Every structure is written in C-alpha cells, then in structure tokens.
C-alpha cells in the first residue's frame, strides 16, 4: 500500500517499468488457471525450469514450475520457514533450497499462493542439475503420479551425434508418455506452431535483454529477474510473444527518451548465477548507490541462450540440442566463452558472481571463470556467497563490505 504521507518522487516514477502491471496480471491469470485446472478438466504437469515445455503446451497441459514457485517463496521471504520445515522432515540443510521449499510446501500448501496445484504428472529434465532427479522422485511418490525423466548428458566439450540421438529418442518417448497420460494423440502440426511461438518468444526475450547494450541501460538484471517468469513458464504461447513485444516497445521508448534503470549510470556490471530472491531490492539499491547497473546476467539469458540450435522447420529434432546445450550443462571453458562474449557485448566494467549454496552446478567453476575473465579482459570480479531462497545464508554486512570494496576498485 502506498503511504499517503510519502511524497511521490517523480524521478523514481519515471524510471518504473510500466509493463510490470500487465506481467503481474498475466502471471495471476496463469496461476488461477493452474489452480482451477481440475474444475476445468485440464491436466497439470510440474516441470523443471530447463525442461522442454513445448510438448505440454501442444497437449493443452498446464505447466507448473516448482522453481518459479521457489523464486516466489524466496521473494516473499517465506523460504526460511519452508526450508526449516523440510529439515524437520529429515532433509539436509545442504540440499537445494528450491527443493527443500517445494517438498515442504507440498505437505502444508504454504507459500505466497497457498501451494501449487496438485500435479497429474511430473516432467524432469536433468539439464539444470542432478538434484531434480531425486526431488521429482520424492514428489512422484508423494503425489502418486507418473514421472518422466529426460536425461541430457553433460556436454563437456562437444555435442556428439550419439548424444543427439540419445536425447532425440527420449523426446519421442516423452510424446508417448504424454499421449498415454493425456489419453489423446499428439498433434504434430500444433507442435510446429508451438515451436514457432517458442522461438519467437525467445528471440523477443533476447531482444529485450539486448536493449541494455544502450548507455544508459533502460533496464537492469533485477528487472530481467522479474520479467523472466513468462519465458520460463509459458514459452510456446502467443501470450509470451505479445507480452515481450510490448516490453520491447517500452524498452525502446525508454532508450529513445534516455530513461535509465539506474540514475546517473556510471558503471556496468555482469551478474552470474541465480538472484538472491529475498534481497533483490537491497542489492539493487546497494549497486544503484554506487551508480552501478547490472546490465546483464548469465541466468535470465539462459532462456534464449540456445536459440542458435533451434530450427523452426524441425523444432522437435532441434530441441535435443536446444535443451542439452544450455548454459549450466556445458563445460567451464564454454561457459567462460559465453561470459566473455557478454562482457564485450554489454560493455561491462566488472563481474559479480553469486556463489549460490543451493545451486552447485551453477557455482562450480566460478573461480575458474573468474580467472579466465581476469586474464582475457582484465576486468575485476567479485564473488559473494549466499543462497537464492534460504536467507540464513546471507550476511548483510559481509556482503555489503565486499560490494563496497569491489566498487572502490572499479572507481
């Protein structure tokens, strides 16, 4: 609620992104649809954030993302309670905080939206981590629903034909799984259309992110963390295409009018790893205090990072590479190359890496990437230790000092 006593800062108002309202409305509708699916005879599938959602959209199954929900739990500062609940159930505090929050939430229907709708099936793709396998097995047992696992081998150096054939064959099994559990045949023509919309959505998302190549940047990574939800959850729908078209227009207008995400932007930084969901505002203000804008990040760009492998004419075939070759399923050298490309593309002055206690695959290799970036571009970098959802792993004064000292180096 707005405080009537507090005067509105016109400068701050001007910098607010107007599309946020539309985005919130879409996400509300989406969760209402998902929560009322059963009444409307629709099926719900829980799916991992890096999982292939397009076949679900094709089959009119509502995809629900425990990880998106985890982000919401984190942002609403409800992560600690749920993590503690999971620990009471016997899960180790070293386990991913999204997994802990989700496993606990399912038993109490807690969190900011009173829990996720009950799944009819679970789709787990291990391109993001190995934890999801056990996590989804736990949920499959808890809800007594079928689980489909898509195994994407880790791409250490090259994407071989064997890997391709292996993943491609599983996509056919995925379709058979959906046909069995939805009780209807898979519509390949519809899949073509969904694939086209998925590619279009990803292209638009990339264009939105690329507006920050402008100086000053019209948006920051903190804005991207928010607007990301759509490309994750509803990829392959017209809704995403329409929304990002609107957001892109707004960003272009902001560029034309010189509206910056950070007042008097002087330094441009690149963020690595997931956000610290319960501290995004604090971090964003901390960096803004130093006139630093996080102009790009490796996280939100992951949902358009494999566009080069996708083929509209053979979407299903190209999906194998599109899903196996995502940012955290590739070797450290390739990850470093992508970071270096981003450093150059967005013209950044420094790299900020969140060593995320929850996300080991993302955090592994950060010190090597840091060294490679230092050697090849000579820009300074900072590692801050925290956790995306479990606020017990965040110490404000320690992180504050690191950021202040890092900015003193850059200045």
């Amino acid at each position: 609620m707005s405080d009537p006593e507090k005067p509105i800062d016109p400068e701050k108002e001007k910098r607010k992104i107007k599309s946020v309202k539309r985005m919130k409305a879409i996400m509300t509708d989406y969760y209402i649809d998902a929560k009322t699916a059963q009444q409307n005879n629709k099926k719900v599938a829980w799916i991992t954030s890096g999982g292939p959602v397009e076949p679900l959209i094709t089959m009119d199954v509502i995809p629900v993302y425990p990880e998106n929900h985890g982000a919401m739990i984190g942002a609403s500062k409800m992560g600690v309670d749920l993590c503690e609940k999971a620990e009471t159930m016997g899960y180790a505090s070293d386990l991913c905080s999204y997994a802990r929050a989700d496993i606990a939430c399912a038993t109490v229907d807690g969190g900011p939206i009173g829990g996720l709708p009950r799944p009819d099936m679970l789709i787990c793709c291990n391109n993001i981590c190995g934890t999801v396998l056990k996590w989804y097995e736990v949920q499959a047992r808890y809800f007594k629903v079928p689980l489909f696992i898509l195994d994407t081998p880790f791409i250490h150096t090259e994407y071989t034909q064997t890997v391709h054939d292996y993943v491609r064959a599983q996509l056919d099994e995925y379709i058979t799984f959906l046909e069995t559990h939805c009780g209807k045949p898979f519509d390949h023509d519809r899949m073509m259309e969904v694939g086209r919309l998925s590619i279009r959505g990803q292209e638009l998302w990339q264009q939105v992110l690329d507006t920050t190549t402008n100086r000053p940047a019209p948006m920051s990574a903190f804005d991207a963390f928010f607007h990301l939800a759509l490309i994750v959850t509803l990829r392959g729908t017209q809704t995403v295409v329409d929304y990002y078209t609107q957001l892109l227009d707004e960003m272009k207008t902001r560029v034309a009018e010189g509206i910056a995400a950070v007042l008097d932007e002087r330094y441009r930084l690149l963020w690595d790893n997931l956000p610290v969901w319960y501290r995004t505002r604090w971090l964003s203000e901390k960096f803004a205090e130093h006139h630093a804008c996080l102009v790009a990040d490796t996280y939100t760009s992951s949902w358009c990072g494999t566009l080069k492998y996708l083929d509209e004419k053979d979407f299903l075939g190209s999906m194998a590479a599109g899903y196996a070759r995502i940012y955290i399923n590739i070797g450290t050298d390739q990850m470093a190359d992508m970071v270096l490309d981003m450093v150059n593309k967005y013209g950044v002055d420094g790299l900020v890496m969140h060593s995320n206690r929850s996300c080991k695959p993302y955090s592994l290799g950060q010190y090597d990437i840091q060294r490679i970036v230092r050697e090849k571009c000579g820009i300074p970098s900072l590692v801050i230790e925290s956790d995306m959802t479990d606020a017990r792993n965040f110490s404000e004064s320690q992180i504050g000092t690191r950021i202040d000292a890092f900015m003193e180096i850059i200045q």
Partner: protein
Amino acid sequence: MITVGIDVGSISAKAALVRDNQLVGSRVALTGYNARNAGEKVFKELLATLDIRTDAVDRIVATGYGRNSVDLADRAVTEITCHAAGAHFQDPAVRCVIDIGGQDSKAIALDENGRVVDFAMNDKCAAGTGRFLEVMARALEVDLDAFGKISLKADQPAAISSLCTVFAESEVISLIARGEPRDNIIAGIHDSIAGRVVAMAKRVGIVEPLMMTGGVARNIGVVKALEKKADCPVSVFAHAQENGAIGAALIAAKEKG
C-alpha cells in the same frame, strides 16, 4: 594538514592521526556493544593524548565494520581499500597484504600505487580470524597475548582439522584431555589459521613482498605459521593493528589534498 582515520572493527576500534603524510599517533580501544560510541571515543582519546583540538582536524575517514555508524567522519571507505593504502605507505614495494582481524580475514592484491587490484575474504565463518583465536585462548586458559611466544616452543604442532570454530574448540578440548602439550596445541591452531588464510590468499595470488596487518599480526606464532605455509617471508610493522585506520587517514589526506 591533519587527517584522522577511524577503524571500527568487530572487536576493537582504532584511530590514527596523520600530519603532512607522517603518522603522528594511533590508539586502540575495545569496540564493545556500541560501535557508534566506540569510534568517537577512540578518536577523542587519541586527540587528547596528542593534545590536538578537534577543529584542527581537516578530514576524517571511517572504515571497518562500523564505518557507516561513525557520525563525525566525512566519508566511509572499506577496510580493504584502507589496508592497501596503509600497507603501501609502510612499504611501497608490497603487492600482497594478508589482514586478519576480529571477524574476518582478507587477502588483498595491490598495484604500485597502493590501489586494490583484487581481494578475497573468508566466507561466513569465524575460522581463520581473531575471534577463533579468542575462543581457543579461552579453552586453553592462556592469555591471548602469550599465544605467539608459547607456540614457538612447540616441537610437534597438533593437527586441528575442523574448519568450524565450535568444532575446532571441541577438538582442542579433546587434545587437552589427551594430555597434548599446550604449546603444540597452540601451534596447531596457528597452522590451521595459516592453512586456511594462505589457501584464500592464493586465489588473489601471493606475490612477495608479503605483508601481514590487523590485530592478529601481533601474534608471532601466526606470522611464522603464515611464512611456513606461504613459503615466503611475511613482514609486519609496528602499527599493524592500526593499519586500517592509518590507511583511512592517508586516504582522507589524499582526498583533501
């Protein structure tokens, strides 16, 4: 021109006064419960000792964990930047500083102008810090100031493997129960700190000459253990504990300059 640096750390507050690029005096006091007061108190005490009036001070820079709570300071600068400036002032050849304070340890790489190039800090854990030593001194019933000298007498430093201060304390208690000589236990504690800090310092790169600053630099045992682990000499100057405050005073002078 007179400038003062005030370093409010987690355990002690330090103040240093610099006149025309010369260190005139410095003072250390316990921070205690009220960090805000601690900074002002140590500042006033220093001025009284030196018989200098408050209005004669041209600029004040605060640093340390309590840097933002020192109201009389003109500006706050992090202890990383200040320790680099202080070390550079003592020895312009220094390219790497290991600072071990009350609640954190840092490794700082600096350039020929005393500017920070890179740094690493301990994670959210007291191991490898002054607080760790305090806990151990209590468990061993030894005055912390005597730690360094006692450890030099050790013939076989005990192995302390736990990285956690609380668990390391249990380990120390078990060693005491087993009748392990006190000097060996203390030397083991110093080795454990040195091992952890050197591993962290290697991330920024250990380059000679290496200097140690911060309150723990007063402990000769830790300095010797660091030399062993880093395999190079470690220099410590007389005002190592006040180095952050000295750096802050120098930065204040440069800004006023």
